[in-house]
């Protein structure tokens, strides 16, 4: 509305419109406030004259087009939408509220917004791609073994309740597999708390997995599907997960991801109002794929050290894929984003 002539200091009495709320009551009256050149606010409300020096007034920061609140000590509050006028008055009288004027300016400058958007997207991507996995790699060794044990037991108990049933393999067969396992990898497992378990599972089919505490689980269906070399190849991959502490790193990175987004958006309530869980799930799957690749690399090294042919891993993957009924050409690029493992064809190629 009204505005100071910039730079001029002589005789610049100006007015702006506001709502006045007297101290102590939820009463309201629309008033025209006069700000004179000597820096006094004055207006008339409820049949009374009010006067207050502008530099004693507390002014709320500008925030978009939302109204500003001026607190007049002992008198009450003024609410006005005349943001430009208030800003100019702050500048003109060197009011302490002038200090915060840069922030709202930033919030309204398209170029700054664009620049900061790029900063946010780049740092966000870097944190998600590199920062969080690196942080997980550094902090995982600090986690006491007791936590691994708890997490491993918890995971196994959970699967035993739902998907795993006791193994149907004979004791001799289990013994034989464990001995083969020890013969090839025994001397590379020092410091790792690895144990091998067998379970039957219709839900998982031919499958193997590593738990945070170093437990390796192989399903009967898997053992019956593969030959000895293939069993050892997949075992090497699972040992890779244990070597790199993937269980704990996965837990750390997914909780760090949630914590970081909560901190940044700072609004847990709004998060629950709008479904934003889909991007999360996708992000966590990408961490999982990175760890699978790392375990594949570890498997190659282990097999090399144990004098095994790494092609066995490729044929094991092929057999597992066939047994799960996946079409040979089913690994299109976009499917990778929805998968916890990299495309099988890509993995097979690495080992051929």
């Amino acid at each position, binding site marked *: 509305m009204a505005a100071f002539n910039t730079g001029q200091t002589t005789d610049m009495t100006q007015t702006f419109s506001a*709502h006045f*709320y*007297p*101290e*102590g*009551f*939820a*009463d*309201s*009256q*629309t008033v025209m406030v006069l700000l004179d050149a000597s820096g006094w606010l004055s207006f008339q409300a409820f049949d009374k004259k009010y006067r207050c020096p502008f530099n004693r007034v507390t002014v*709320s*920061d500008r*925030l*978009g*087009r*939302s*109204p500003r*609140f001026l607190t007049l000590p002992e008198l*009450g*509050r003024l*609410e006005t939408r005349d943001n430009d006028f208030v800003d100019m008055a702050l500048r003109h009288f060197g009011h302490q509220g002038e200090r915060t004027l840069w*922030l709202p300016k*930033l*919030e*309204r*400058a398209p170029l*700054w*917004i664009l620049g*900061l*958007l790029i*900063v*946010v997207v780049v*740092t*966000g991507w870097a944190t998600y791609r590199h920062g969080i996995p690196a942080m997980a790699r550094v902090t995982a060794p600090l986690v*006491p073994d*007791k*936590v691994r044990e708890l997490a491993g037991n918890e995971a196994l108990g959970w699967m035993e309740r739902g998907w795993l049933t006791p193994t149907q393999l004979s004791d001799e067969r289990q013994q034989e597999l464990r001995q083969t396992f020890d013969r090839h990898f025994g001397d590379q497992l020092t410091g790792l708390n690895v144990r091998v378990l067998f379970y039957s599972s219709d839900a998982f089919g031919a499958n193997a997995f590593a738990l945070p505490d170093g437990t390796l689980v192989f399903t009967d269906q898997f053992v019956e599907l593969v030959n000895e070399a293939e069993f050892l190849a997949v075992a090497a991959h699972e040992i890779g997960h244990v070597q790199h502490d993937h269980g704990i790193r996965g837990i750390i990175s997914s909780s760090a991801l949630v914590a970081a987004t909560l*901190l*940044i*958006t*700072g*609004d*847990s*309530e*709004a998060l629950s*109002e*709008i*479904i*934003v869980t*889909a*991007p999360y799930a996708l992000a966590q799957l990408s961490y999982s794929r990175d760890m699978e690749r790392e375990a594949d690399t570890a498997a190659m090294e282990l097999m090399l050290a144990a004098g095994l042919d790494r092609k066995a891993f490729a044929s094991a993957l092929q057999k597992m894929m066939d047994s799960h009924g996946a079409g040979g050409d089913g690994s299109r690029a976009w499917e990778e984003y929805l998968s916890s493992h990299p495309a099988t064809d890509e993995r097979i190629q690495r080992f051929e």
Partner: protein
Amino acid sequence: MTSQSLTDTPVTSRPSLKPIPVAFNGRGGEYFGIWIVNIALTVLTLGIYSAWAKVRNKRYFYGNTDVAGASFEYLATGGQILKGRLIAVAVFVAFSMMSSFISPEVYGLFMLAFMAAMPWLINAGLRFNARYSAYRGVRFRFTGTYWAACKAFFLYPLLGMITLGIMMPHAMHYAARYVVTNHAYGNKAFKFDATVRQYQSVVLGLVIGIIASIALIAIGFSQVSIPLMLVGYLAIYGLSLAFKPLLFNVYWKGVNLERNRFEANMPVGRFIWVFISNSIVVALTLGLAFPWAQVRLAHLNANSLTFLHAGNLGSIAASQAKEMSAVGEELGEVYDVDVGFGI
């Protein structure tokens, strides 16, 4: 625009209530700028600015909510919120470090103590939020007690579950009444006159709808009709979303203060549309449309409410009770239970 009248309307006649629409004046584009600056500064200060960011976000939604010509004010400072968050982080770190040293029994004891502190934390959050919210220069207050919060948020919902949902409408009604009637604006307490029956009819309607949908799915299953099953699943999803607007309407119609009330009319279909389209757009833009989605929801909330002014707001005085700074008040903010009071 004066809205004070010192002479109260006679009690004998029906008080004449003047309907005034509640307005939300925020804009998605404008809020985007504020939001992105908040995030950038939070990232650049390694998270410390998030406390001030929270204040700015909250002030944006308060300041743009207009009831009878006046907006809401959020008065908490970033410093207060940072203090609460630092305490919470310290407690969390101490807690998780301890977990590896102490026996499971002692750890369980700590967990129990934390659970016992929950009602207190919820109250602290509500108290903090109310105390730093103002309208027409007069602050809100929250005065709930530990035991009542226990009943409202834990015991009654538990009872509702034990009785397989039969007591659930009672529990929901109790929780809503607890929150509303323990709030005060200045020296006047809010009242709540929604009935258990209203909550029962909302719940009953949804249960019937869900049973019908399940029947539809079963029929679709037996006739191997995929479209029929799909309709059943979509109906269940829609019904679960319908819960919020139906409760919103019952809740706000029940809130009153010195004969001032609200008319609430959130259209169920509109809410479901806004919710689903918001979710899709936010997911497709990897979160960048979040400010736009929030503003859109705020518009819907405000447009669904009409303030019925009894003309006596001006006579409400600010509370004279000198409030003591409660220990851990800032901590309550961390837990952030916004029960949807003050929109």
